[in-house]
């Protein structure tokens, strides 16, 4: 009964808003954390239970058509993880208990929406949940109602609305030719069609919409603004999972379940992916704002994921899914590092920093882990996903793109090294002599994510083939 994954966060926020607010406020953090932990546990331990909890009564009342495969499982796990981490980050940043409570509510709505995206097997339901996620992210970005936050939120709202308009247009065209909105029905209807202009238009609309949502170049304009202006916890959440669930995952799902991989479509994906990977990395080189640099890095990494998807092979998909997971881990980690630095220093300007490693050892160390994983240095987790993507590109015959991917890795290393050098190493600015390490609620998730990066990197080779094989079903279905 996978509907519980959608219902539980929503009902959680619903129950928290019933009377006895004072009690509920106190409970909210625990309830929320428990829900996210439970979500991760459900995915990790299959016997734990979604398959077993199948009350017939519920099934009779509700008629939800949901499906789960390896890709959704990766996404569900990432959602739980990043949401948990965001929760911890947030508890350090918002002082006001009302704010905290509202944040948790919005977070629950967002998680509910993303779980819906991941589980939906109907294109219109998917759109509905996409909008839920989008609305929640708008609120999260504008949460502090600071000037820049509102500006970033407005840009995101605008571009996101355009994307949804394009998407509804695409849905309408699919609906026109199939008379249904179910994945399978549309897929079979498309197979019956000739290669017509209408279908190409629909696919182009859809792909462009998802490129906007995912922040691929040149559809990325909103992304650096929204990420860098959002409150710390919101950036962690947005960069860690929202754009991946709303953009990349949906794109993969549409391609796999509806559109199929034609050679032209593959070339579009590969080109956009490589373009984002390289240009995003180059743009990150000269950034002076910590979070903005990370935003451009996100664009670059999403480019890698799309490169993996663009191969259209099982290996490429598995690499993309793994990179989604890794990106969720290391980008949340890096955004948390930036949050810790910002909290301690009151600025995000890299050029003013230096030598923070001695004052903030945990932040420094974990950020090194995150950066190296992002740049794909063995034995960290990022290495494996990039390796798989590059191998997939090479073996699918896209050798130029494989070389570009490697080049992008070098660029990634370049900007992260310059970031590390100017933030955590070098001479300590006298102004910041008395700064302290961030609080426990930030350190704990940082260490957790650092350990995951390292642990996955070390132990992944043991289960890698199993992991990749599980993606056969994704492409087959």
């Amino acid at each position, binding site marked *: 009964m996978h509907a519980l994954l959608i219902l539980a966060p929503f009902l959680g*926020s619903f129950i928290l808003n019933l009377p006895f607010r004072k009690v509920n406020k106190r409970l909210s953090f625990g309830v929320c954390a428990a829900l996210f932990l439970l979500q991760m546990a459900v995915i990790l331990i299959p016997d734990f239970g979604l398959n077993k909890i199948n009350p017939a009564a519920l099934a009779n009342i509700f*008629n939800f058509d949901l499906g789960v495969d390896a890709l959704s499982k990766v996404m569900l796990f990432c959602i739980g993880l990043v949401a948990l981490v965001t929760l911890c980050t947030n508890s350090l940043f918002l002082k006001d208990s009302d704010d905290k409570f*509202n944040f948790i509510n*919005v977070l629950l709505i967002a998680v*509910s929406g993303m779980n*819906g995206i991941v589980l939906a097997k109907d294109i219109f339901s998917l759109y*509905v949940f996409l909008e839920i996620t989008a609305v929640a992210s708008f*609120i999260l970005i504008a949460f502090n109602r600071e000037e820049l936050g509102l500006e970033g939120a407005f840009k995101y709202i605008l571009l996101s609305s355009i994307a949804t308009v394009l998407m509804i247009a695409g849905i309408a065209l699919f609906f026109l030719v199939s008379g249904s909105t179910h994945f399978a029905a549309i897929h079979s209807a498309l197979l*019956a069609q000739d290669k017509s202009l209408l279908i190409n*238009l629909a696919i182009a609309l859809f792909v462009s919409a998802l490129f906007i949502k995912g922040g691929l170049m040149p559809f990325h304009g909103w992304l650096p603004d929204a990420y860098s202006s959002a409150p710390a916890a919101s950036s962690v959440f947005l960069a860690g999972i929202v754009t991946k669930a709303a953009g990349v995952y949906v794109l993969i799902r549409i391609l796999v379940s509806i559109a199929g991989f034609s050679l032209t479509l593959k070339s579009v994906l590969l080109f956009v992916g490589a373009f984002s990977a390289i240009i995003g990395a180059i743009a990150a080189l000269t950034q002076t704002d910590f979070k903005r640099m990370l935003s451009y890095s996100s664009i670059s990494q999403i480019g890698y994921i799309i490169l993996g998807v663009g191969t259209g092979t099982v290996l490429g998909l598995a690499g993309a899914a793994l990179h989604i997971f890794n990106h969720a881990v290391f980008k949340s980690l890096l955004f948390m590092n930036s949050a810790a630095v910002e909290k301690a220093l009151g600025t995000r300007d890299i050029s003013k920093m230096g030598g923070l490693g001695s004052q903030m050892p945990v932040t420094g160390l974990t950020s090194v882990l995150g950066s190296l994983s992002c740049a794909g240095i063995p034995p960290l987790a990022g290495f494996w996903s990039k390796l798989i993507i590059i191998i997939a590109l090479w073996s699918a015959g896209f050798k130029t793109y494989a070389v570009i991917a490697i080049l992008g890795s070098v660029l990634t290393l370049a900007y992260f090294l310059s970031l590390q050098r100017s933030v955590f190493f070098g001479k300590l600015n006298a102004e910041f002599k008395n700064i302290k390490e961030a609080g426990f609620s930030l350190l704990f998730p940082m260490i957790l994510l650092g350990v995951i990066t390292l642990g996955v990197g070390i132990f992944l080779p043991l289960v890698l083939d199993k992991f990749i094989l599980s993606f056969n079903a994704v492409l087959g279905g």
Partner: protein
Amino acid sequence: MFLDLIILILLVIAALWTVMTRSLLRASLGLALVSAILTLIMFNMDASLAAVFELSVCAGLIPVLFISVISLTQPLTFKEAVEHMRSRMARFWELPLIVLILGVILVLLSAKFKAKLPALETQASARFVLWHLRQLDLLGQIIILFGGVFGVAVLFKERKKRG
């Protein structure tokens, strides 16, 4: 058929007016007008459920929302208004032309956009579809409304002390 076409042309003209009119207030009303004409089209196409929703929500609620915002903001001074008008004319005069030319082009091109349509037999009622087949969407609507409430709580909340 002819009536349909007239209404559709009216729709476009209403939209053009909405976009090009100088006053924000009139633009909001224009939006309501667009919604109303869309409602007509929906009725004409036997989409009564959607039409009712469109009329009540889009023609009613959303313009009200915009108008309330406009009333919260200060009106322009006379000088600004003149400047504003001039720049608007400079930016918008070509829009009707574009729309017209594009319309002609599209009429010529429309033959190319063809698709095999599915043969559907059974016709369930819209209510049945909405309440029984689209339960997931309904759940989504409830959640998004809930999210909207939180959004209002966050964004429209009066600021404490800090100003």
